[in-house]
């Protein structure tokens, strides 16, 4: 059993717009183990990105609020830290990279400037030492001629190179955890694999753990040890990657796996194989959030929210029908009625 370095417990995040309150994240819990990667998957709006940004407390304070839960890093609850203490976590113990490298780098500062300021925010280095470190970092992420490139502006880099720069910035202070929010979505297909390989390499080299936010299960198979399936702000299934791959338990996960076959590249389109769309989170949901789209919904699904249970060790699911026979029956049906799912 490996030791966990980050524990998220019962995280609650609400967005407020006027009098409308949207419960974007509703009781999410997970543990990240040392040297392991966890993948959080789900449609857009499932709360996966909000969960990730909440860990660093980077959600916009004017409209969103973390209303409950704990985020434990090395025995400290990040939600209880002062702003000053939190700053020492960001970019130092936990770093983050974002979806679109063309907008996540500041266009008016050189790459070197943005790297050096990160290093100097956390480490007591002289400008010269920081610059040396910055060059090393650029080299580490595979940017050719880093001594020259360091003085260039982001717009002088290609998309893939920009994401490499983002990774260099994120790794500047040897963080133990890297949060990657859809790091390859905005990139060309050919570049995606390079970036993933780079991240995997660096993860092993630098002894860190990655939280990978993605809608692309392929990325998870490639990169991750654990997987967390989110739907409507909740965790509906979590397991070791190979367990989930061979034995998915939640009907929504089945749909995700199905859609993987159709390979939809558009992260915003509803899943190709699951008809309907997620529920409106500004209303209280009484039963199972997936009920309207679930082909096997029973009365109980409408009236009672399923709890996250662990039918087998290390594999949790939030669905009412989890005895072995029920499950088999339903999967059976799923394959027979495959058309209804796929339509």
């Amino acid at each position, binding site marked *: 059993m490996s030791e966990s370095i980050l524990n998220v417990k019962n995280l609650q995040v609400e967005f407020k717009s006027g009098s409308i309150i949207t419960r974007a994240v509703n009781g999410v819990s997970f543990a990240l183990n040392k040297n392991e990667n966890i993948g959080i998957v789900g449609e857009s709006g499932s709360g996966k990105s909000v969960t990730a*940004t909440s860990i660093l407390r980077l959600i916009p304070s004017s409209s969103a609020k973390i209303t409950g839960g704990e985020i434990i890093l090395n025995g400290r609850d990040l939600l209880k830290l002062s*702003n000053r203490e939190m700053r020492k976590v960001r970019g130092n113990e936990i770093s983050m990279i974002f979806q679109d490298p063309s907008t996540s780098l500041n*266009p008016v500062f050189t790459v070197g400037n943005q790297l050096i300021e*990160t290093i100097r925010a956390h480490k007591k280095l002289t400008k010269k030492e920081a610059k040396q470190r910055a060059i090393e970092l650029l080299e580490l992420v595979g940017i050719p001629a880093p001594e020259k490139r360091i003085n260039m502006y982001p717009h002088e880099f290609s998309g893939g190179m920009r994401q490499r720069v983002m990774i260099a910035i994120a790794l500047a202070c040897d963080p133990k955890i890297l949060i990657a929010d859809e790091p390859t979505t905005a990139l060309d297909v050919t570049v995606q694999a390079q970036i993933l390989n780079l991240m995997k390499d660096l993860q092993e080299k630098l002894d860190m753990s990655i939280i990978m936010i993605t809608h692309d299960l392929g990325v998870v198979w490639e990169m991750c040890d654990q997987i967390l399936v989110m739907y409507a702000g909740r965790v509906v299934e979590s397991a070791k990657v190979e367990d989930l791959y061979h034995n998915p338990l939640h009907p929504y996960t089945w749909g995700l796996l199905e859609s993987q076959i159709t390979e939809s590249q558009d992260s915003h389109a509803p899943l190709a194989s699951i008809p309907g769309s997620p529920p409106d989170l500004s209303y209280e949901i009484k039963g199972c959030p997936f009920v309207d789209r679930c082909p096997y919904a029973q009365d109980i699904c409408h009236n009672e929210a399923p709890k996250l249970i662990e039918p087998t060790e290390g594999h949790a699911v939030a669905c009412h029908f989890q005895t072995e026979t029920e499950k088999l029956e339903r999967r059976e049906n799923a394959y027979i009625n495959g058309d209804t799912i796929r339509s």
Partner: protein
Amino acid sequence: MKRFLFRRILQLIPTLFIVAIIVFFITRMLPGNPAAVMLGPQASAEDIAAYSEQLGLNEPLHRQFFDYLGNLVKFDFGNSLSYNQPIADLIMERFPNTVILAISALIIAVIIGVPAGILAAKKQNTFLDYFITTFSLVGVSMPIFWLGVMLALYFSVNLGWLPSTGMGSLDNGLWDFLSHLILPSIALATIPTAQFARIIRSSMLETISHDYIKTARSKGLREFIVINKHALKNALTPLLTVMGLQFSNLLGGAVLTETIFSWPGMGLLIVNAIEKRDFVVVQNTVIFIAVIYVVINLIVDVLYKVVNPKINLDSDKGGA
């Protein structure tokens, strides 16, 4: 960069040419003989004829125009009838005074307007934001000649704290100089201050929503640096354009402020010349201001490039 500068300077030439044409023809629109108008009703026919000759009014129009252009290039603006001295000297005597006033106003506007805009954006939808937004809207709506009169009424007439006319001299000490400068520069600064606050607020709000601000925060930078380094430099681009425009407007807008406070600058020169019907002075002073205006816009374009490396000014798209 050098090529860009060269090209932009070349582009000035047609603009300046047009400016010269506009002013030349506007002054030729004067009803009757300009010489007669300028000399006034008491002038004798001989005087008028002599002055017409001196102004070259008897030449054909195109000759007049080219003579006038030639003189402009030589910085020879002719003589002022009412001031009885070369107009070039007159302008050179007054121009620095207007610049002093405009620069003081611009400094006030930047010192107050920019932080106010940043603050309003940072505290969006709070009382402070509403306060700043309301004040800046009143500011941009302000008739500055009225504000000038009110400032003079309150601080000079009622309280007697500050002089309300003329310009001080450094020879009489710093306070003499400053005390004369305070009221006119406040009046002149009102609109730019309000405008800077509005522009900075909206461009900061826009900038803060960008991803790179989230990146900056995720790196663990202090909020002060996130706002004042990462957001501000991006938000400054629209400010620069407006600052250039405002500075040139200050030079022109100083007409009213200078009149109210009898500040001996270009604006007062124009107004006095109009009163004395000395159109040669009006014509040349206006041209001079227009040239300054165009040159400032060029400087703003260049600064633009320095602030925002992404703008490629060598292409035709740049240089607004």
